[in-house]
């Protein structure tokens, strides 16, 4: 099940929602990251067929989601906002949308009960939604979106308002669905949540797609932005020698010594070279190390660099 956007632009009058976005999303989990107003929800709405692009083409499984209503059978959507029939119980609400999928009354109730129960709403499912806590509402939204086993799950801030237990349950469920070959698109502000679920991300800001793909690959593209590589020697006394030696290399931009943590950080714009040459240098200098690492391709770091306007090749 594939989602394809080709040079998609969406304007709301004079305001630009998203601009010239092209991407192809395959099965598995993809995270959409960006600050508020970046265009995450607009992108999701266009994929869902809730909004029509001003320019460009959107295809889901080869069809236009705005005009092909039968395609909606494949969609499960968890919106960021509340959208309940507050007078219904959680069970009635989920069953109601199952009936919209042409499921018989008894069957709908049975399936809805099971889905809500799996998300830990056994006791609350018969209560009216207007008595639910935020976590319960979030679970009900997820149950409604996933109960009919959709091929594509689009979740706008699914962890918003969820307590740690709920978050854990949802993440486990998402991993299960991804394993089953579903296409899952998640937007979130909580970078760690996305990072723990997928490496496949789309970074968006001011309606423009900054990067799309594997986060490690994205970082490699950003060679012109110096990257910190940290080295922790076994002996503290080796820190200064190592720093001096590293400054001899042309790929070293700068070095920083952190005596307290016994750590040398080398800033470089040729990280591949560093990883190739470092073992030879350490061997020649007879320096043993505990650890070599770079946290620079964490989502936090990528997000910060890209969203704050840093450029790459």
């Amino acid at each position: 099940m594939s989602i394809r956007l080709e040079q998609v632009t969406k304007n709301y009058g004079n305001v630009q929602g998203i601009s010239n976005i092209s991407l192809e999303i395959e099965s598995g989990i993809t995270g959409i990251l960006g600050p508020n107003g970046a265009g995450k929800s607009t992108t999701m709405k266009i994929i869902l067929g809730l909004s029509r692009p001003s320019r460009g083409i959107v295809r889901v499984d080869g069809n236009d989601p705005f005009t092909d209503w039968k395609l909606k059978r494949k969609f499960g959507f968890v919106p960021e906002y509340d959208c309940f029939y507050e007078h219904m119980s959680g069970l009635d609400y989920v069953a109601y949308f199952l009936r919209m999928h042409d499921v018989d009354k008894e069957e709908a109730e049975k399936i809805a009960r099971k889905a809500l129960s799996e998300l830990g709403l056994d006791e609350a499912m018969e209560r009216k939604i207007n008595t639910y806590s935020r976590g319960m509402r979030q679970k009900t939204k997820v149950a409604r979106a996933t109960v009919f086993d959709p091929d594509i799950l689009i979740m706008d801030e699914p962890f918003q308002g969820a307590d740690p237990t709920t978050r854990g349950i949802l993440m486990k469920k998402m991993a299960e669905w991804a394993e089953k070959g579903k296409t899952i698109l998640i937007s979130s502000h909580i970078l760690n949540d996305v990072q723990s679920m997928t490496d496949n991300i789309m970074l968006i800001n001011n309606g423009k797609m900054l990067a799309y793909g594997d986060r490690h690959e994205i970082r490699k593209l950003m060679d012109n932005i110096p990257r910190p590589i940290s080295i922790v020697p076994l002996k503290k006394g080796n820190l200064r020698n190592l720093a001096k030696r590293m400054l001899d290399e042309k790929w070293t931009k700068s070095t920083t010594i952190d005596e307290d943590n016994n750590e040398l950080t080398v800033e470089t714009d040729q990280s591949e070279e560093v990883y190739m040459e470092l073992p030879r240098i350490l061997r020649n200098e007879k320096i043993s190390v505990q650890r070599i690492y770079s946290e620079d391709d964490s989502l936090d770091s990528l997000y910060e660099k890209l969203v704050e306007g840093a450029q790459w090749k």
Partner: protein
Amino acid sequence: MEMKNFGDEIIMFAKRTKNLFPPIVKDCTYRLLVNKMTWVLIVILLLPCLFGIVLYNEFEDEREYEMQDGDKVYLFPDNNGNLVPLHIDLRENFVNQSDLFNISFVAIILAILFSSELINEEYTQKTMQLLRTTPIHSFEILLYRYIAGVLCMFGILGIYSIIFYLTTMMGSGQHGIIENLDVLLLILKVLLLESIAFMGIFCVFTIYFNRPFLIGIAYWIIWESIVSGQNYQKLTVTHYLNSILFDSTKEMSWDVVASDYSLVNSKNDIIATEPLTAVLIIVIIAIITLILGTRGLSNRQF
């Protein structure tokens, strides 16, 4: 080929009805009946009934009567002082009051309120967005809401009309009530047709405009109230409802003329429409509004 596809879609819609129709109509009916404004309108509707009961208690003992085939027929003196059956006077009161009060006023407000609750409220609560991400055609989204609206509107106005009929006619006794059931049926028929037409029109307003309530009121005042008494009245729903009322009362041998129902033009020519044609036109208006509404819903972006 296209006709075959269209036929297939109709068959598919029909098959899905058993799963879509009951939950949507149940939910919509619930929402309409728990709406506070609905109950305000019901109370307004019941005021004339209370007035009828008060009048009945006031004048109950002053009535004259004569026995006809074992039935007690109550009488009242006409302008010439002759005693005529009281139910003839009361039934005219019933029709005139129904025409003035519930057909012209409350029904319109109910239609605007219901269409707003059924469509606009779903936009506000954002449940319409969810419906648009489920495999249900915009026509189905609108049709079942429309049916729920028509059923509730006709149900409320119909029950009210029966109560109003009883409280108005009870002065003429059992004989008067039974004798004029055809008048009650006429009013019920007009109310059903009115519900069918106006629910459709106001649903379209709700789908296309951001302020459906204001547009609805403006439409009623400018179009249905002013234009309906003029030369272009055939462009209004009121003309067709009046044509049915006029023709039916004439059929019942009432002493009515076309101008009683504003069915004349500026040259005083009668421009009443045949009742069957009037019914057909109202049904066509409803179908057109459903088609327009479906287009509006399909093209609406979120």
